[in-house]
């Protein structure tokens, strides 16, 4: 196996963005028919490296060899010519076009001057059958599931004869079922000699699908190890550079007075349908209450109603005894609610603002950040500097734009802002989604510390591990109703049954 020429070889790749070194002399090789995982924290340089390989950036230094031949990849079309295909985290599909149209886009089979739709569909069908990629060639993209959209992206690369496939965080958008289907496809591709770069920070998936793992940390290659013999613990250590607590230690809780009381709350969703149907619940000081449920069962609307973003249809929300239902975000915030929203890009941060400006989003109206309507930039920056340090936000100064931080560090900024507002109730809606182990450990530690400090924490999560590690009580939400309450040592099976409606009778 060693003697075989590598399908792909990167030597000494360095990429500088001004003073920032995103990739520092990275070596990477990919054997034919191998799944090679690229593992690293948010901002470790994985995506930059693959963008160089795909011709989106040109490297400052270093060389690329494909099948032993020195090449210069100066554009994605050159990469495609070389047999390199990339599936981005954010799909590049035209929503109103069909699966076939999307796949053949730019390489349309023609009959005379006309598009040969039938030939296109035939070839798509042939490819999808060969690798078990179940797609309907005539379905319109906006009407198919995320999993199928991803398969279309993979087909797009295969249609262009890709022999090297780069998958950037492919499982981030998939359900557990879709992930295992994806892995089946990857195995079929591998058997056919396609080489795959699998970018991820989910350790269990890397262990399951890859043959070798290369770990990047802060732009440098730390090590390349065979997957066989590696463990979650050993990979996490390579990634973060120290031992990581995959499971946080939790002291016994001392719940106090109720800080959040929700009474028979009804909330309508965007489409006017009743998404929350009479929820009553309590969160007390010094306890973490987890809201568990399959995504889309009313969690978002419930959280929005508590945080004041969405006016409830009926019912009451009280914070520390004050009724804030329907008063809006500002009054709710002033009553002591902090909210780490689910979608940090859309709701949590202003990406075009600097970090200092983002960190001031809660407190810009009061001294010392502003006086008589005039901002004090000095105070804003000073406060930001302290928070960035305390929350270990890397790669950013107070003047850095939020958009230039990696996802994990962006999330730390949102977490820092919310906790610094000194709330009575902290709502954390999927606070670790898309984060790497180091950042997850940090956020979990922070949430537990807030619990120690006597704040109430409402955690909304889809991750069983996270819920069990953090929660003092678990409430299960199903179709807009609380259908059960469990202690944190509940089994995954029992919780799963409740989450899919099986526990409704018991509640």
């Amino acid at each position, binding site marked *: 196996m060693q003697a075989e020429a590598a399908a792909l070889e990167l030597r000494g790749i360095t990429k500088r*963005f*001004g003073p*920032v070194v*995103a990739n520092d002399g990275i070596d990477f090789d990919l054997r034919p028919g191998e799944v090679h995982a690229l593992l690293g924290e*948010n*901002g470790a340089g994985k*995506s*930059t490296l693959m963008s160089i390989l*795909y011709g*989106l*950036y040109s490297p400052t230094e270093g060389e690329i060899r494909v099948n032993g031949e020195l090449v210069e990849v100066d554009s*994605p*079309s050159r990469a495609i010519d070389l047999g390199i295909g*990339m599936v981005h*985290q*954010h*799909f*590049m599909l035209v929503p109103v076009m069909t699966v076939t149209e999307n796949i053949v886009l*730019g390489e349309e089979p023609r009959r005379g001057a006309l598009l040969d739709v039938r030939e296109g569909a035939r070839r798509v069908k042939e490819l999808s059958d060969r690798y078990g990629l179940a797609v309907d060639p005539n379905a319109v993209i906006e009407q198919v599931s*995320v999993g199928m959209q991803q398969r279309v992206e993979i087909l797009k690369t295969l249609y262009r004869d890709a022999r090297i496939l780069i998958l950037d*965080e492919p499982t*981030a*958008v998939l359900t557990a079922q879709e992930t295992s289907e994806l892995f089946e496809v990857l195995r079929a591709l591998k058997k056919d000699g396609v080489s795959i770069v699998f970018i991820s920070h989910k350790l269990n998936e890397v262990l399951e699908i890859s043959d070798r793992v290369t770990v990047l940390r802060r732009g440098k290659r730390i090590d390349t190890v065979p997957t066989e013999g590696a463990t979650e613990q050993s990979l996490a250590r390579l990634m973060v550079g120290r031992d990581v607590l995959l499971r946080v230690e939790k002291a016994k809780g001392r719940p106090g007075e109720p800080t959040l009381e929700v009474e028979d709350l009804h909330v309508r969703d965007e489409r006017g349908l009743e998404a929350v149907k009479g929820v009553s619940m309590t969160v007390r000081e010094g306890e973490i209450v987890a809201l568990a449920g399959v995504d889309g069962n009313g969690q978002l609307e419930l959280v929005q109603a508590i945080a*004041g*973003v969405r006016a409830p249809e009926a019912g009451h929300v009280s914070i520390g005894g004050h009724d804030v239902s329907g008063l*809006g*975000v*500002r009054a709710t*915030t002033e009553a002591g609610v902090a*909210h780490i*929203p689910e*979608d940090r*890009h*859309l*709701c*949590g*941060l*202003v*990406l*075009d*603002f600097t970090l200092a*400006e983002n960190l*001031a*989003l*809660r407190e810009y*109206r009061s001294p010392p950040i*502003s006086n008589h*309507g*005039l*901002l004090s930039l000095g105070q804003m920056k000073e406060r930001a500097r302290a928070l960035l340090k305390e929350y270990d936000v890397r*790669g950013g100064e107070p003047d850095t*734009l*939020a*958009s*230039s*931080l*990696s*996802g994990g560090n962006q999330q730390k900024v949102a977490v820092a802002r919310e906790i610094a507002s000194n709330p009575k109730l902290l709502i954390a809606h999927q606070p670790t*989604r*898309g984060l790497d182990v180091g950042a997850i450990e940090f956020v979990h530690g922070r949430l537990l510390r807030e619990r120690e400090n006597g704040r109430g924490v409402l955690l909304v999560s889809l991750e069983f591990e996270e819920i069990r590690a953090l929660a003092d009580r678990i409430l299960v939400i199903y179709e807009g109703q609380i259908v059960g309450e469990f202690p944190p040592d509940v089994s995954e099976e029992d919780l799963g049954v409740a989450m899919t409606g099986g526990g409704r009778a018991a509640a």
Partner: protein
Amino acid sequence: MSATEEPEVLAQTPASRLAGYLRGGGVIVPVMTTLLAFIAGGLVMLVTGKDPIATYEAIWKGTGLQWLFPWTTGADRDLAASNLQQTLIITTPLILTGLAVAFAFRAGLFNIGGNGQYIVGSIAAVWVGSSFAGMPSVLHILLAILAACAAGAFWAGIAGFLKATTGAHEVISTIMLNYIALWLGVWLFSLDGPLQNEAQKSIPVSEDVVEGAKLPVFWGDPVLQGLHIGLFIALFAVIVFWVLLNRSTIGYEVRAVGFNPEAARYSGMSVGKNYFLVMAVCGLFAGLAGAIDVLGWQFRIATNDLPIVYFGFIGIAVALLGRNTAIGTVAAALLFGALYSGTSQRNLDPTIFEPSLASNLTFIIQGLVILIVSADVLVLAIIARGRGIFRRDRTAPAPAAEPEP
């Protein structure tokens, strides 16, 4: 979609996306944009058989900007001074209408209504300025200016209010309001209209602004349209714009709403209130422009002047070229002001280029600027070609890369 790891610029509206472009690239891109527009204008002259170099030289002389150089002396200097006064008289309202568009841009809104806001401002100013004769001069001027600002703010506020309450798009509503303002003015000043001149019953024109309400001239001959103090009012407005936007909590909210309305909402800001407020402030700037022109050099409004008011529209080009910044707006306003006066009948040497054609040249250059600014990416690409890179490396260590679809 869901889990997003790499940074990604979320474009909310075309206006905010454009605003995003306009922040990048510093001063080089607008300068290149202008140069390209001038080169293209030169080509137009060549094609039509004129000498571009001589024409641009004549336009340059017409602007009076050579007055700034100490080696311009004697009669040349006097002519230059008079020309420069004209340039600055036009620059003044352009600064303000530029601010009116720039402020909206920063909130992610596209204010096409500068023209209408300018017109209602000038109507209010001519009404107040021609009434209340005998009022103390300073008070009279202030009252006329305040009335114009209020009228402009109200006019633009309608569009902001509609956007905030019903979601009506501000581009459409401001365009419509332009027409309403225009025809409102025509009705007011036409024969037997409510505000038509009492003394000249046969001419569709407003009353004249009384002496006491005219802005004092501080440079040049007041009778020959010297430079009035409106320039300082406009420059003061620039400072207000800058402080409001960059140093006040209001501006902080405006920018937050402009970049990401959803995050602003989650932070407790009222997006609707901000839309209204922003449009009102824009209208205030444009209304002020109308007041300054009426009180500074027009002194009356004739109905046939109204349909050819264009300062509000040039404000769009000014804001785009000035990249929605305070200082950029001043520079861009001066450029357009110089172009207009440089190609005017009064200033351009007719033996080199007929002024009637030259003003069309100005329109061509203006159009090209808007076109090229809109194709800003193209200019960035041309610059990048030289350096072998394609992205704003300075600001973005790992920007979301958009590959060819």
